[in-house]
């Protein structure tokens, strides 16, 4: 399908500024090429919603909202074309079967052994070994080897050695969806563990001896502190309401040595509508500062991010300060529990702040433990009430940490954004499906590719140039400040594609290029020194002297010096660094303020200007 003379409107312009071009639909992407040959690609899987607006004089408006927060506003000249595009997009963006997802047709030109190796890149057994399990207190359990006890857990689970199979089975029957307490992270030095599970089926008074034993086994597996924390990540009211449905929370009287704590993170439905409100505000045209701030407040979004991080800080304190083990759960133990466990581990262990470590963390606490990526990200056409930005919140919490500790992370913001992109793209197999069992049934490892080797391959893009691996060496622990003013609106996520809103020069990219260039320069120096040595064949002492003499050459004079004519340009100047993008008044819409004011005075000339790209 191909439609010409389509207009792409500026999302924030009130004066209908637009680019004209041609719109194409391919099997996987929507493509728009404007008159200056700039291409806009949109993956069908990224489309969250398509909306046809009422017909206008210039044509039929079509608004496409994407899961990566891109919003494009097309105007199609003929209504019939618009209708065709609309219908096609509806079909293309709503997939009924996994096998129709992009990952099953995506072919990155890898051979089979590369594909297999790619999937082996992240090895969770290796990861548990790195943490220090199995050991005297913790062992690998084969109870779920055939997914018989819990379908949404992985096959391999680590449990206290003293937890026998009957205890595991009994406990799992007393937990929602069979998700009994298992090890998520083991802190070697403190000998304390982060464990995770779902809510107990306690109702108003039910007890389960095996479950009580299970918790006791966890607390006994920690020789440093017999007390353990049980963190219910839900608001107390929600947990109490669950009791009426035969679920609920642990009664402190029935379990020995536990300290029970609610931490009040809201459920997936609250989070979904919170994000919806946030996007409504940030997408408003001609937004005032106060409408933005009050919209931000009313959306509750930053409050939720803070709640998640506060919960992680609570967990980390229990382990780092009291050496106590912590059992974390919410309702089913795959949303809030994943957030809190993974953020807790990230704060405790610097390994997860490396590029590879972060992949491992996501594989472990999100993918293997059954965060329902398919449902939450709406990979297949399904129940809209299952959609929720739980994983996005996790990434945003990590971003907040990288802002507070700019040197503690090997990866940068682009890495987080890229992961977010691919969680929704369905281009790689990693995030397809809702649990490991489902992934095995889909034969993802044979039929699709893993994202991680591709990210590792281009890891230069994702490296933080300020990263210091020895950051606070004596304690790898991060202690974030969670005072409200530390939480900021994540503009680079929610306005990733609205270029006019971003700084026109990026310090970060500049430093990244520079630190990349430094490596190249180091190489050049070695090479040049070798050449000189070779030419000289003389004593090094002379060489050193000459170096000192020419420590501060005048580069400009050099260019004109005749002996340099045959030389290559001195230093490759990183052009990208100097580019000032989109620096023009029209992008910034100051003039719209004039338009508003001059309504009473129609003679006022319009200050609108065409796009004049300026680069230096």
């Amino acid at each position, binding site marked *: 399908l191909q439609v010409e003379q389509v207009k792409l409107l500026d999302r924030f312009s009130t004066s209908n500024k637009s680019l004209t071009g041609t719109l194409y639909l391919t099997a996987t992407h929507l493509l728009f090429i404007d008159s200056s040959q700039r291409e806009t690609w949109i993956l069908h899987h990224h489309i969250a919603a398509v909306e046809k607006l009422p017909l206008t004089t210039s044509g039929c408006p079509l608004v496409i909202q994407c899961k990566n927060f891109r919003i494009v506003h097309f105007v199609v000249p003929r209504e019939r074309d618009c209708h065709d595009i609309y219908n096609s997009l509806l079909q293309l963006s709503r997939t009924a079967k996994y096998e129709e997802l992009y990952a099953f047709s995506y072919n990155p030109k890898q051979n089979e052994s590369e594909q297999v190796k790619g999937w082996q890149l992240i090895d969770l057994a290796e990861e548990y070994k790195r943490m220090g399990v199995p050991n005297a207190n913790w062992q690998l359990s084969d109870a779920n080897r055939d997914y018989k006890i819990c379908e949404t857990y992985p096959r391999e689970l680590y449990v206290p050695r003293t937890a026998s199979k009957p205890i595991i089975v009994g406990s799992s029957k007393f937990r929602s969806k069979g998700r009994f307490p298992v090890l998520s992270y083991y802190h070697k030095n403190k000998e304390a563990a982060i464990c995770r599970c779902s809510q107990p089926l306690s109702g108003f008074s039910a007890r389960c001896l095996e479950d009580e034993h299970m918790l006791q086994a966890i607390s006994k597996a920690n020789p440093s502190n017999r007390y353990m924390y049980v963190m219910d990540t839900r608001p107390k009211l929600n947990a109490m309401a669950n009791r009426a449905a035969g679920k609920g929370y642990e009664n402190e009287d029935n379990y020995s040595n536990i300290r029970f704590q609610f931490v009040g993170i809201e459920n997936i439905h609250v989070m979904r509508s919170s994000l919806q409100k946030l996007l409504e505000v940030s997408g408003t045209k001609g937004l005032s500062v106060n409408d933005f*701030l009050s919209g931000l407040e009313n959306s509750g979004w930053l*409050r939720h991010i803070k709640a998640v991080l506060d919960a992680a800080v609570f967990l980390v304190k229990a382990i780092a300060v009291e050496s106590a083990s912590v059992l974390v759960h919410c309702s089913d133990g795959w949303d809030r529990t994943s957030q809190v466990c993974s953020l807790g581990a990230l704060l405790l262990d610097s390994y997860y702040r490396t590029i590879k470590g972060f992949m491992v963390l996501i594989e472990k606490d999100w993918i293997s433990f059954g965060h329902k990526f398919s449902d939450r990200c709406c990979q297949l056409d399904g129940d809209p009430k299952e959609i929720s930005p739980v994983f996005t919140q996790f990434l945003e919490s990590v971003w907040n940490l990288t802002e507070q500790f700019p040197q503690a992370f090997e990866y940068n913001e682009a890495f987080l954004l890229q992961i977010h992109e691919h969680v929704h793209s369905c281009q790689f197999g990693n995030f397809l499906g809702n649990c490991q069992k489902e992934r095995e049934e889909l034969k993802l490892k044979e039929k699709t590719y893993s994202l991680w080797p591709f990210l590792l391959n281009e890891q230069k893009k994702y490296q933080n140039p300020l990263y210091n691996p020895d950051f606070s060496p004596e304690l790898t622990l991060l202690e974030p400040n969670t005072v409200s003013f530390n939480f900021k609106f994540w503009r680079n996520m929610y306005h990733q594609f609205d270029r006019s809103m971003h*700084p026109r020069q990026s310090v970060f990219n500049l430093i990244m290029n520079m630190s990349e260039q430094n490596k190249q320069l180091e190489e050049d120096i070695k090479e040049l020194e070798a050449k000189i040595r070779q030419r000289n064949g003389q004593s090094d002492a002379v060489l050193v002297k000459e170096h000192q003499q020419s420590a501060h050459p005048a580069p400009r004079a050099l260019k004109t010096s005749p002996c340099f004519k045959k030389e290559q340009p001195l230093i490759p100047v990183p052009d990208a660094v100097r580019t000032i993008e989109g620096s023009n008044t029209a992008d910034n819409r100051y003039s719209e303020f004039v338009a508003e004011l001059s309504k009473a005075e129609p003679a006022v000339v319009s200050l609108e200007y065409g796009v004049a790209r300026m680069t230096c």
Partner: protein
Amino acid sequence: MEFAELIKTPRADNVVLHRPFYLAVEGTLCLTGHHLIFSSRRQDNAEELWLLHSNIDSIEKRFVGSLGTIVIKCKDLRIIQLDIPGMEECLNIASSIEALSTLDSVTLMYPFFYRPMFEIVEDGWRSFLPDQEFELLSSVTDEWRLSCINKEFSVCPSYPPVVIVPKSIDDEALRKVAMFRHGSRFPVLSYYHKKNGMVMMRSSQPLTGTNGRRCKEDERLINATLRPGKRGYIIDTRSLNVAQQARAKGGGFEQEVHYPQWRRIHKCIERFNILQESLIKLVEACNDQSHNMDRWLSKLEASNWLTHIKEILTAACLAAQCIDREGASVLVHGTEGTDSTLQVTSLAQIILDPRCRTIRGFESLVVREWLQAGHPFQQRCAQSAYSNSKQKWEAPVFLLFLDCVWQILRQFPCSFEFNEQFLIMLFEHAYASQFGTFLGNNENERAKLKLLQKTMSLWSWVNRSEELSKFQNPLFEANSLVIWPSVAPQSLQLWEGVFLRWNRPSKFLDEAHEEMINIIKYNKELQAKVNALRRQLAEMETDDRMQENL
């Protein structure tokens, strides 16, 4: 008056100093005429805190038994607490600080007593003279002249002795125009845009009153800046409503009938106590760590600070847009032309003129558009966010300007020769300083105070290489373009370097900044080395060739 009379207890021992994010320190407190000095007695890590009395915004005292506590809130927004044993000592010290920090007479201020401990390389009082500025201008255009009409400050008390006006308007006409403008602030040249010869002028409101008075000379003056057949824009920093109300008090705005070649645009930039309250609310919000997210956001919103930032920036962008894109000349004024007018004209220049983004150029801008232009620093900066006295004259007009500059700096981090520290330094010195630069409300007062003879200029200190290095932006690469900042709310940020400076530990951010600077330094070293080696190699090659030729 002797300071000694005010200092009943010049020294107290066993005083404990509390600051956020630092351990409490015990030491000795001394009061001098201009400073509060605290020194810890610890041998291993002697620490001294010097605080100018003029930096103190307010103090509170309370007692628990005989232990007194003084909380000192400073104009730079820092808060410290001193525990002083002995009720009498504490009361004495508190009353001394109160008296010394609220001296009535300017000539008792520290700048009149300060003796610099550094060698003066360049006298800052002579660094930015109007003649030099005019010389630059006359090299590109001859349509303007330097008028000495205000030599004895006889025409306009808040203008400098010399101003730049259109050549075709003589002093006699200027006198008439001065009668027609509020505070006699007749239109003068603020900025000449070399690229297209368009200009920005500034003035105060015309005194049209309710019966629509007009002044032919005024019309002639501003029309003299227009090219034949071209329009100009008058940017009135008040809303139309406010401007209309001003007529009742004798003020007003330019009527279309009398200024047919001009289009008037009204912007709404707030003034005086509204801004002061905004600052007070913002600082209050930032200082309370216990706020939950909703409360923090609603307090930030209620402060309106970022709204003011957006309004000011938008007006400045608009002025710049008229000049650069529309190819039109602009006249900016509000009521007095000493506050919002200067915010707009100075920010527009930062957007338009690369020179204003250098350290020297920015200093010159502050001198021209703020000090010489008669922004009443002494009135506006008498008190900061902790003041209890609600005087009408205090307003963070200059701080808002600096914040706007910071916003642009953040969006164009490589286009400025100076860094954030430079802006923070100017903020501090505008409110409390050992230098005379920001004393007085205009050049007239400064001349009467003989600041030039009796005090040191801030620029004499700043423009020494030792100091300059602290304020240089390592990322600076001259950018000759006009820089258009985004004014979307999503693009504006709270200036953490000022408002959260004392409210959070900055160790990790500082270290990261240091690392960034190291990478840049290392890059320069490596480049120099590669160049040196290449040259060496090339020389060897030519030597070889010459030998071959021989």
